[in-house]
């Protein structure tokens, strides 16, 4: 079975979820739980870092769609960073760059949140 795990750290008010491994239909619920937890704790400024992610499927992408509305309604956002070309290609294919800000590095994404303030 493909491995997938996440780790969460906080940088100021921004929560950073680091994804590692394969995010697919099988593992999507793990990330889903992360979002649910963060929303419960009213952490709406979220950066998802993809630098250790090897693969994402549409079920994985669906998790982002499922929670973005709620997070943006709460004046927050999900920003994405550190994608490999392969992962970016899938985001791009499905039109995600229109809806999400995608940054080269985690730091840039975090900085974007602090700039808005």
């Amino acid at each position, binding site marked *: 079975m493909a491995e997938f795990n996440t780790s969460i750290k906080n940088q100021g008010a921004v929560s950073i979820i680091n994804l590692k491994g394969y995010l697919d239909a099988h593992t999507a619920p793990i990330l889903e739980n992360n979002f649910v937890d963060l929303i419960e704790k009213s952490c709406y400024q979220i950066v998802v870092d993809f630098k250790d992610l090897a693969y994402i499927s*549409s079920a994985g992408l669906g998790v982002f769609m499922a929670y973005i509305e709620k997070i943006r309604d709460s004046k927050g956002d999900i920003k994405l960073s550190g994608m490999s070309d392969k992962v970016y290609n*899938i985001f791009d294919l499905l039109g995600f760059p229109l*809806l999400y800000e995608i940054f080269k590095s985690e730091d840039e994404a975090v900085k974007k949140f602090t700039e808005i303030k």
Partner: protein
Amino acid sequence: MQDNDNLKAKRNLTALVEFSRVINSSLDLNFILNNVLLTCLGKFLATRGVIALNISGKLQIKSYKGISEESISLFPNIDASEDCTENDELKNFFTDNNLLASEKISSSNECVGIVCLGEKLNKQDYSKDDLDFLKTILNIAASAIQNSLIVEELKLVNRELDSRIQRLSSLFELSKEFGLFSESTKVTRLLIFSLIGQFLVQKYALLRFEGNDIEVIEPKLPVEELLSNLRKIDYHRIDASLNKEQVALLFPSLYSMGIEVIVPMQIQGRTKGLIILGRRINNVDYTDADIEFIFSVGSLAIISMENRRLFREALEKQKMEEELDLAREIQRNLLPQKIPVYKNFDIAAVNVSSKQVGGDYYDIIELDNDGCVVAIADVSGKGVPASLLMANMQAFLQVICRQNVPLDEATGLINDLISKNTADGKFITFFWGILNNIDMTFKYVNAGHNPPLLIRDGKIIKLEIGGMILGVMKTILPYRSEKIQLMKDDVLVMFTDGISEAMNKKSEEFSDEALEKLSLEMASASAETILKEIQSEVQRFTDGANQSDDITLVVIKVK
């Protein structure tokens, strides 16, 4: 002058070589066109220029300088034919925008596009030399432009291919995840995630039909409004996917909720649910291929859910059968475990229940004063309710036999109790009697049961005296009893309709006549032999047909 011309020609040549090197070093169309245009403008000191390319047979402006966007938007829609520069609309466009020189970009077999340039800064007309030079530049540029066009097309094809591969891998992944053992909530969740991830949707709902009910799963649409709109239409009949136009046309109320696609989830052509999706956030319409994909994923999901349901049903059925086995076991234990032995009587009895727990019952209850009560009963219906009533009956019987109440009166009491305890039209046919080992009498009451046969001297006497079947109403007319003086070699055959009505594969009944004939023939044998013979004759008759009813048989032989 000669030197000057030579120098000019040499400079032109150097410029051409450099130009060729630059534009052939790149496959980026914009870079190439930009370079071509800038080179022309620079060479001829022009301040404005346009390049239009042949895109799918039509001329389309791809690069321009010095002309307003508004003017560009008025570029005519014309075919990119060999003589397109002669087109009047195009000429008008040139005049309107003060474009003086135009030249085709031609490859060996077709028009790749055109270049048009505005007036020179020095107001001079374009000389023949200028036009020749322009031609040369464009000849060099043609192959580079064509190559980059092909690369662009390839990129598009590649992207299309990537997107198909991505869809296939989604389908593959989901089919793996939608295994038999997936919880249906997990299946629906994955289905939703995949769809909203694939199509960037935020308004959606998943409906599942259970009979006439609609289960709304994971709705991101106002449920009440959705359901009330759906109920207005024959949603069960939606058996093909509907795209935006069809939804708008057929179900305007749903369309006005922002619903753009309705895709049925089907099993063997029957719609078991619907996938309802709203607008895509990137404002792109769903293509036929998209809808086909949604249909495939939906079918995968519903089949998985249905399989799981069937699997659970099978499990429940199995569990129920185990419980029925247990019930049968309990029921068997209610029947007499051993048959008493008497000086004057030889008794044999059997009960074979059909597949389900049944309603047949017989009992032999020993009395204190050298004798016993023999009873046989058939509770209407089958299954657990019948067997419960039977257990009830057995309890009554055990109690009443100890009370020393006369048989006819006791039958009335039992009837009153049974009537009180049955509500749904259940009844019991019941026959019982007291076998007295001392004076060799048999006193019986028949409450609507198949009359037992008393075989004496080659004749049959049917024991019919009694009254109404038990459980229909309270006792109004008292039951009557009859006392028979038994004689040596008398045979009593008591049975339930499982014997007389046993059916063969041709749906013929074994019949009372056959039983009577057989009983007469066997009258001289022992009780056990008569019993076995009747049983095996019934078995021969049914010849492997399912035993539809319980079979109960009690045979008493007077010694």
